[in-house]
């Protein structure tokens, strides 16, 4: 079950890579693969048990999979140190403001839509 679901995921990623090289160099293979799987699910109308199982198992360990790229910080310690305050300040400030902006905007728009639908 798990293997069949995993095969689907890998197949989508591989197809995505092919499309990436052939026609869409600005979108990475995995993202195209995700779109392909999404379109496939739309056409099929439901998520099969193998696919559900595989995606749930993989997504549970998403934080673990992100650790190796995160460790890459150590290579750029010096370059970051040189521009540290500018970079840190800009990253932190823009992050806080844009998180708040996105959350607040979405909440307001949802409330507005709900008011309009239920007068």
């Amino acid at each position, binding site marked *: 079950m798990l293997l069949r679901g995993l095969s689907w995921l890998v197949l989508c990623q591989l197809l995505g890579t092919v499309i990436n090289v052939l026609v869409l160099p600005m979108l990475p293979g*995995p*993202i195209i693969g*995700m779109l392909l799987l999404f379109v496939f699910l739309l056409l099929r109308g439901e998520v099969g048990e193998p696919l559900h199982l595989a995606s*749930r198992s993989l997504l549970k360990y998403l934080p673990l999979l992100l650790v190796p790229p995160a460790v890459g910080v150590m290579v750029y310690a010096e370059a970051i140190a040189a521009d540290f305050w500018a970079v840190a*300040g800009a990253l932190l400030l823009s*992050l*806080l403001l844009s998180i*708040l902006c996105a959350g607040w905007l*979405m909440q307001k728009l*949802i409330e507005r839509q709900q008011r309009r639908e239920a007068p």
Partner: protein
Amino acid sequence: MTLEWHAAWQALIHHPLFGVGITLGAYQLAIAAYEKSRWVFLQPVLLSMLAVIGILLACGLTFAEYRDSAVALSLFLGPATVALAVPLFLNLRRIRQLFWPTLITLLLAGVFATVLGVTLAWALGAEQIMLMSMAPKSVTSPIAMLVANQIGGIASLAAVFVMITGVIGAIVGPSLLKRCGVRHPAALGMALGLTAHAVGTARALQEGEECGAFAALAMSLMGMFTAVLLPLAILLLR
């Protein structure tokens, strides 16, 4: 009889599984520490990252060697990205109900996040190459690295900014949003996925299925919009 301690140590730290081993160990310890303390600053990704860096420095290993030996883990990042289509699909009905709020937030907040980051770094005096590596900071790292390359930044530096943004966003995001009155799971997920990409999405999944679905949606749409529009925008501005 003398034991070859040195040879054994070298064999251990240069074994192809050493990277996987320390990552798995550090991650499980980080999860245990997080669940015991429930302290937001102990985000598993951040804690494991620090532990792994510490071990690598102590053993005198380079990042390149670690990356090669942890490739078994990194390889699954692709299929995991593809797997995000499933929660996206399962919550499609709710997303469809909130189609316009989602699209408007995505466009406005997405542009805001990108422009604000670059403008602030520029105002604080960062170099051009730093600016171009920072522009795609809010999108998932494979896209960010591609985009940074296209617009004249350094790909791996972009990955680092992406990681820092994601980790900090995941740490402070949920409590900051809740304190400011943003409580709707869709709004929480949207904000986390839009600004803190995969790490934010992983954090949003802990908040619930709907929150996670919107985070995945925001992350993938933000990634696609950035991949297509940011290089175009830079091209027009030059």
